[in-house]
């Protein structure tokens, strides 16, 4: 009996610190967010006024900014997921061919991923403004002369481009790991059966890459939905609200507009949005995976 009690105490001593820390930094603020989302609160006054679901109805019907930012984040995520995965897969296939500089190139593509996203945003701000101006002078190509950050149409493409540029190396190494895990004998068997290179790729390699697709697309999805630093450094959500992501909108609502209650409501909607989207995508992919 004493032995049993000792075991229970031990289990708790080992695991309670982790539970307390997680609760303090995540669960308690989450519960507070849920409560404040039902109030009107400016963040400074002691008393938050309880107003029920009025914040939520205001966000989903009246306030355009929030829905616009949600739509921007959705568009951004779709563009980011598709482009980063497609380009990373192509480059991974090329970089698994045997040649001398392959490792060096992998390193090159990985460099932006280890840099701070804020700094990446600034680098591209510099390139989009000063760099492109000079390139236009040199080449005369109209491409360099567009206002990539100043036009509300183009800014979407610029932001997606920079997002993909920053993290491409990450998806490349994941796909390379996936490609290298494909058993050689399966590919050889296909060659013996007379399959062409394209057939081998589309009928053997791609289906067997299933787990890599799931990982990469899931990662890209969560990273895309979280986009913040890059946009803050690159455009601050502008021009106007043309590149305003939800995360940026939540931040501004609270710290610029001092609407903590409304900001909390926005963050709860954002949480549900992310949760539903990731679970739907994840279960869709799990069903499609091919087992070896």
């Amino acid at each position: 009996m004493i032995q049993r009690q000792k075991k229970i105490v031990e289990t708790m001593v080992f695991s309670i610190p982790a539970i307390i820390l997680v609760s303090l930094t995540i669960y308690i603020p989450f519960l507070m967010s849920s409560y404040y989302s039902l109030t009107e609160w400016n963040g400074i006054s002691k008393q938050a006024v309880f107003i029920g679901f009025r914040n939520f109805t205001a966000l989903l019907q009246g306030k355009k900014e929030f829905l616009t930012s949600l739509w921007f984040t959705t568009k951004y995520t779709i563009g980011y997921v598709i482009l980063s995965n497609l380009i990373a897969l192509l480059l991974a296939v090329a970089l698994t061919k045997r040649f001398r500089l392959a490792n060096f190139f992998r390193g090159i593509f990985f460099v932006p991923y280890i840099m701070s996203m804020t700094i990446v945003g600034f680098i591209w701000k510099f390139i989009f403004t000063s760099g492109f101006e000079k390139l236009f002078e040199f080449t005369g190509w109209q491409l360099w002369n567009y206002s990539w950050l100043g036009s509300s149409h183009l800014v979407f493409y610029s932001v997606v481009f920079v997002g993909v540029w920053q993290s491409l190396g990450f998806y490349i190494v994941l796909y390379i790991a996936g490609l290298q895990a494909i058993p050689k004998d399966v590919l050889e068997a296909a060659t013996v059966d007379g399959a062409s290179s394209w057939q081998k790729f589309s009928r053997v390699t791609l289906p067997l890459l299933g787990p890599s697709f799931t990982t990469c697309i899931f990662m890209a999805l969560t990273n895309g939905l979280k986009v913040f630093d890059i946009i803050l450094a690159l455009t601050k959500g502008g021009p106007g609200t043309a590149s305003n992501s939800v995360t940026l909108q939540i931040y501004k609502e609270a710290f610029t507009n001092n609407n903590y209650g409304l900001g909390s409501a926005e963050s709860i909607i954002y949480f549900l949005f992310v949760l539903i989207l990731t679970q739907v995508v994840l279960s869709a992919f799990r069903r499609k995976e091919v087992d070896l």
Partner: protein
Amino acid sequence: MTLKNQKMIYKVILMICLTMLACMYIYPVFLMFMNSFKPFGEIIANVLAFPSKLDLSNYIYVFNKMKYLRLFRNNVIITVIGIVGIIIFSSMAAYILDRRRGKYSSVAYALIITPMLIPFQTIMLTLLKSMNTLHLSGSKIGLGVQYWGFGIPMATFIFYNFMKTIPIEIDESAKIDGASTFTIYIKIIFPLLKSVTVTVIVLDVMWIWNDFLLPLLMVNTSNETKTLVLAAYTFIGQMNTKWNYALTAMVMAIVPSIIIFILLQKYIVEGVVAGAVKG
């Protein structure tokens, strides 16, 4: 023979394309480095040209103005505090929750890893309020401690999955020799976790070192506590169009990561892959 030649040609074309692509890819970073050595006038005159002479005055100015050494030290302190705590608390929890299966353990495990589903931005507003109450905001140590909470879910998940591969017989034979649970953890289990510990360290160093939003919320009020990226953000904001100083600040903010990457490339890439596949 012709087939072989054809393959060679394909390979050469592929090589050329890849080389061009890699050059274009890294060109913005290169351009930033190059322009950080130029005085303002030269940047305006021609961004693409090489600097006329090797001039370090931008670096000297930014180094002193940003108080670079202090920022660097702040980053190291925060990252080390964060990592050490994450590793200790996560590996301990993962160890015991795997070895003592039962109702309590499954609830505790679920509690610890579920926060992986909650995006940081959902809680950032109220986090600031609760951390003010706990006096964990506004200090380096406080920020480091907060990373414990944010790092534990993912780290515990990775450690827990690895624990399953360590046979329980190892614990049992040590127990027969009279070792306590804590001794088993310190002397036997923790050393066996080495490979995943490296993974966790790689992932968390990259995250904490470059993190922006949490430091922005917590330690932005005083120059004493700012992190490298945060100070660079403020500094670049103030410099606005003085690109020579802004670019130098950018270079100085990312150079530590680049040096570490060049030295530890293999571990970093392996760690990132392992972390993604397990996470």
